[in-house]
């Protein structure tokens, strides 16, 4: 059934040749992330002391405190929202459950900065809500200010909870309801069974989701700058654009990365050695648990409120702005923008899921410390502020390009063809890999923990091994995780701006580039059109995901 405990599986001996291949593979796959991280790290070698003493005295104390508050707040709220909603929708039946189950994923398609802008436009002093309150009560001074720490935490939580929801859902689906039933037959109450069996069993997924949320929060610039809430990221941008010190910006990024590395290391250590295994027998999966009358409606109400706040109301606002301000911007080019977005997002999710799967397998086999470190490094890019990572990726690409170009000039003289490696689709994909590997890797790795070595042994016993073992046995078992990973990467790439902006080939404008074009001149209402298009194009994969999982639900 299921086993939770220290790893006691026999370590299979591995040949030195396959060890070497693994090392090489891990090194290659972590290269796109490693190079920009090295660019950032080199800044630490020669610190710019005058900027640092200023930052240490006037900027860092606030910025560190703000960042810690924000990350803890968002992790707690997004973690709670995501886990509880995943629990309710997979275990219980309540009114509206069937559509809420997939509708709760949709906020994934709304970029956090869009949600932030909508929230401030609606809830701030000059917004319609407080204006209405003032016309009724004469004053709205008692209304809590949205441009505050609490407001920023709330908005980021609503924007990011789907990461946890999606991963936790995948855990609860593959773990099945039978686990609870068994725990209850062993004398636990339902509540005790949840806390002592179901949640611990889902821990790798929940932790993986919360880790993604934390990294995304640390790297966020768009949303916090709309709140004018100062974090590490805003300090990095200020050092760069305000004080013209790229160096100080890189140093700050490096310090941020050290924090992230330590946090990830601790998270890993807390669950190292645990193995989670489960073989589902879907034909005998018990029906969803029934809820009492009031509890049914409370659960439905809770899920509905989250859906309304995180998706439906912002969507209405976007539609309203589009009709009012942006409709005239819609022209034939939008097909092209959408196509570019889809091609980039789809090929990125293909490449990144394949890379994630490879890395997860390398970790599953007996591996060296080097491989482990390489895999961890490969997933760090998600916590680096987008623009910093974009420039960090650009530097090595340009160096390679210029070296090649110079070599070609030596060979062919002035008739050498001009190359521009840094704005090719290959560059875009490598850059996305540096940024989004964590998004693909976390679900795949959690999923692979469910595939026990005994399954492998059984398969090998029946003569299925090597690539066939992966294709015939693992991939079907990993279907939920792989789809989750693919969708997350797809939607994240659709929303991504700084990397797309700097590495896109000539003429390759995407929907996100359109959003940038409007928001960078403060025309937020006109950005509603491309934002809406991102939501619509993002809905398709989200719907696909849930349909793909229906048979399990």
């Amino acid at each position, binding site marked *: 059934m299921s086993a939770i405990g220290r790893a006691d599986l026999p370590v299979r001996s591995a040949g030195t040749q*396959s060890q070497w*291949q693994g090392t090489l593979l891990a090194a290659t796959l972590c290269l796109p992330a490693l190079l920009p991280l090295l660019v950032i790290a080199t800044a630490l070698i020669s610190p710019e002391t005058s900027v640092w003493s*200023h930052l240490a005295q006037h*900027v860092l104390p606030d910025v560190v405190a703000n960042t810690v508050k924000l990350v803890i707040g968002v992790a707690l709220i997004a973690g709670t929202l995501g886990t509880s909603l995943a629990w309710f929708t997979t275990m219980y039946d309540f009114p509206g459950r069937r559509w809420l189950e997939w509708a709760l994923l949709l906020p994934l398609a709304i970029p956090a900065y869009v949600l932030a802008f909508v929230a*401030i*436009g609606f809830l701030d*002093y*000059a917004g319609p809500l407080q*204006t209405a309150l003032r016309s009724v009560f004469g004053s709205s001074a008692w209304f809590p*200010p949205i*441009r505050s720490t609490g407001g920023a935490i709330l908005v980021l939580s609503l924007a990011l909870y789907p990461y946890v929801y999606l991963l936790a859902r995948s855990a609860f689906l593959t773990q099945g309801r039978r686990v609870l039933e068994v725990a209850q037959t062993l004398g636990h109450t339902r509540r005790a069974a949840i806390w002592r069996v179901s949640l611990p069993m889902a821990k790798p997924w929940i932790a993986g989701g919360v880790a993604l949320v934390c990294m995304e929060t640390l790297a966020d610039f768009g949303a916090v*700058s*709309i709140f*004018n809430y*100062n974090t590490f990221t*805003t300090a990095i*941008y200020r050092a*760069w*654009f*305000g*004080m*013209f*010190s*790229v160096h100080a910006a890189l140093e700050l990024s490096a310090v941020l990365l050290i924090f992230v590395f330590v946090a990830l290391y601790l998270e890993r250590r807390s669950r190292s050695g645990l193995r989670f295994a489960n073989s589902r027998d879907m034909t005998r999966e018990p029906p969803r648990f029934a809820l009492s009358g009031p509890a049914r409606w409370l659960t439905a109400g809770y899920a509905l409120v989250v859906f309304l706040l995180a998706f439906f109301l912002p969507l209405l606002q976007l539609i309203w702005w589009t009709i009012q301000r942006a409709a005239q911007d819609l022209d034939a080019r939008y097909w092209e923008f959408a196509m570019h977005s889809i091609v980039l997002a789809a090929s990125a999710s293909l490449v990144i899921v*394949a890379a994630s799967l490879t890395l997860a*397998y390398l970790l599953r086999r007996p591996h060296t410390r080097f491989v482990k470190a390489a895999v961890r490094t490969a997933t760090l890019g998600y916590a680096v502020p987008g*623009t910093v990572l*974009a*420039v960090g990726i*650009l530097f090595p690409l*340009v*160096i390679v390009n*210029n070296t090649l*170009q110079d070599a070609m000039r030596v060979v062919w003289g002035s008739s050498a*063809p*001009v*190359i*521009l*490696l*840094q*704005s*090719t*689709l*290959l560059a875009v*994909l490598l850059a996305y890999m540096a940024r989004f590997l964590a998004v693909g890797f976390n679900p795949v790795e959690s999923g692979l923990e469910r595939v026990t070595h005994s399954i492998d042994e059984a398969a090998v016993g029946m003569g299925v091994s*090597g*690539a066939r073992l*992966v294709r015939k046995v693992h991939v079907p078992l990993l279907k939920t995780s792989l789809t989750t990973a693919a969708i997350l990467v797809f939607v994240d790439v659709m929303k991504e701006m*700084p990397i797309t*902006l*700097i590495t896109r*080939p*000539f*003429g390759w404008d995407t929907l996100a580039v359109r959003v940038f*074009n*409007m928001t*960078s*001149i*403060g*025309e937020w209402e006109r950005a509603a059109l491309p934002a809406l298009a991102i939501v619509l194009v993002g809905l398709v994969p989200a719907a696909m995901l849930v349909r793909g999982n229906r048979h399990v639900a």
Partner: protein
Amino acid sequence: MKRLRFAGLHWLLLGSLALLVSCAPPPSELIVYSARNETLIQPIIDKYTAETGQKVQLITDDAGPLIQRLNAEGKNSPADLLITVDAGVLWHAAQLGVLRSIESPVLDANIPEHLRDPRKRWFGLTVRARTIVYSTERVKPEELDTYESLTNEKWRGRLCLRTSKSVYNQSLVAMLIAQHGEEKTEQIVRGWVANLATPAFANDTLLMQAIAAGQCDVGIVNTYYFGRLQRDQPDLPLKLFWPDQNGQGTHVNISGAGVTAHAPRAEQAQKFLEWLSQPQAQALFASLDLEYPASPSAKAVDQVAGWGEFKQSPLNVAQAGELQPAAVRLMDRAGYL
């Protein structure tokens, strides 16, 4: 595992080749890196192409990454022209050596001296003022005077500001330093912060909406943001005030351009820049975002002209860049977030 990997390798190589083919930029097209928004520049590019037949490729991004990119690409950069907003940013680009100085009698004649680089590496093309906006319901224009007069106690709890992260505020404070020195400027900024009605806003539009809604009474904004809001809501109870008319004059900033240091098509780039400085192009360029043309012989659109004549600060806008790091530190010290 082994077979799987080798099959994958083939595809990877094939795929990479396909991905590389799409990269070569057409050699005859002018390549422009622009941090000025695409919608505010494409129409004028289209006009230029229609008039001269010269095709132009536009790559838009934020100024920071674009300048780093130019710098990294060095002599292999495909870019011919850098267009961006804010004098400080242009100064920084020139400082990094990514722009070349150009001798052009046309540009010298069309663009006033205080709106271009003293060493001729960049030229202002459009002008925006960063000025005072006030509520016509609660403030009389006689009550207003200079930027520093907003530190007066009568504005306690009535002032709204945009964040100090805005490059426009950084340039404004830099120019105040140029005018008054650091010590006095720090007092001014502290005085503003003490008068704030609410934490600083992320953008000028939110700030003006707050004044209209009654959260505060005065603020400091760029003219074109006011213009856009006025265009959408003509009965807005807000007006612009030109500060410091009896002294130095109102602070102006620019959007501008420079030919890149390693431009493969430098001559064509200079031609385009000269064309942009001529009155007809100037008028169109400035009208796209309700700005003032840099060339005095071109006219602003009626809506903009309707805000009245004002005296511009004659200080060279290049100082905004030179003093910007000092301005940022000063605002940090003064607790202006």
